[in-house]
């Protein structure tokens, strides 16, 4: 079974760690996570909540299938399967705009 990490990173929500491809062990997604954490302990907060559940901001696929529909951590993984891990990409608009949480380009730099 081939585990492929794609663009995810650190606690508290998955962020960029980098792209990695490796061989993993296990017959379920939970086994794959346990194997990854054994080899890369720093990944643990990105994969699981403190309660041991799959992090909701993490997308996990077995081949082309989203494990949310396959039993999440109990989804079966075969020897020839590829497990892909990716962070969720999401956001929300604020109505109305009440706070400035960005630095505008025009005022951030001196042009003289």
């Amino acid at each position, binding site marked *: 079974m081939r585990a492929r990490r794609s663009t995810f990173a650190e606690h508290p929500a998955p962020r960029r760690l980098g792209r990695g491809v490796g061989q993993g062990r296990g017959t379920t997604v939970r086994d794959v996570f346990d194997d990854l954490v054994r080899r890369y302990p720093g990944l643990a907060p990105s994969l699981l909540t403190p309660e041991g559940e799959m992090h909701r901001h993490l997308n996990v696929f077995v081949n082309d299938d989203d494990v949310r529909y396959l039993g999440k951590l109990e989804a079966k993984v075969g020897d020839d399967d590829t497990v892909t891990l990716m962070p969720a990409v999401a956001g929300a608009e*604020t109505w109305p705009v009440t706070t400035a*949480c960005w630095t505008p380009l025009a005022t951030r730099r001196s042009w003289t």
Partner: protein
Amino acid sequence: MPTRSARDQAVQDRSAPPVRRAHSCSLVRNGSFISVLIVPRDLWDRIVAHCLDGLPLEACGLLAGRDGEVCEVYPAANAARSARVYTVEPRDLLHADRAADAAGLSLIGVWHSHTHSPAYPSPTDVAQAPDPDWHYVIVSLSDLEPVLRSYRVVAGAAEEEAVVVSA
């Protein structure tokens, strides 16, 4: 493909003194780095068109390229199906990542639309930014003309970057 002259032209349009290039996706002015996102005109059009097609809901998609230059765009479905919230459909994210990889590119950012507010990142946009190396493009459809801005989000702070639309 965008050329060096596109960046230099953008600088000159601001009536600023010449800058020296730090690396391919930034400029240096007065000793400070300025992040730049280069978007070919045809891809800019596809981004905006996808946002307009998504109305009245928020639309989103993924940017692929290298070194601050967008080489391909992958429109995605908004899994949240909301006018206020977007979530890139996970399978669209997976397919875009694979397609970019097959093309020798990387996913370098995401765009989404704001249907009722300006093209400024919300606290949620900043908090949920998945990658500090990404470019975060927001297209506002609140006025008659779409407005596209781009940001870098690092350590919980968003800074606007220059967008150069190349021929």
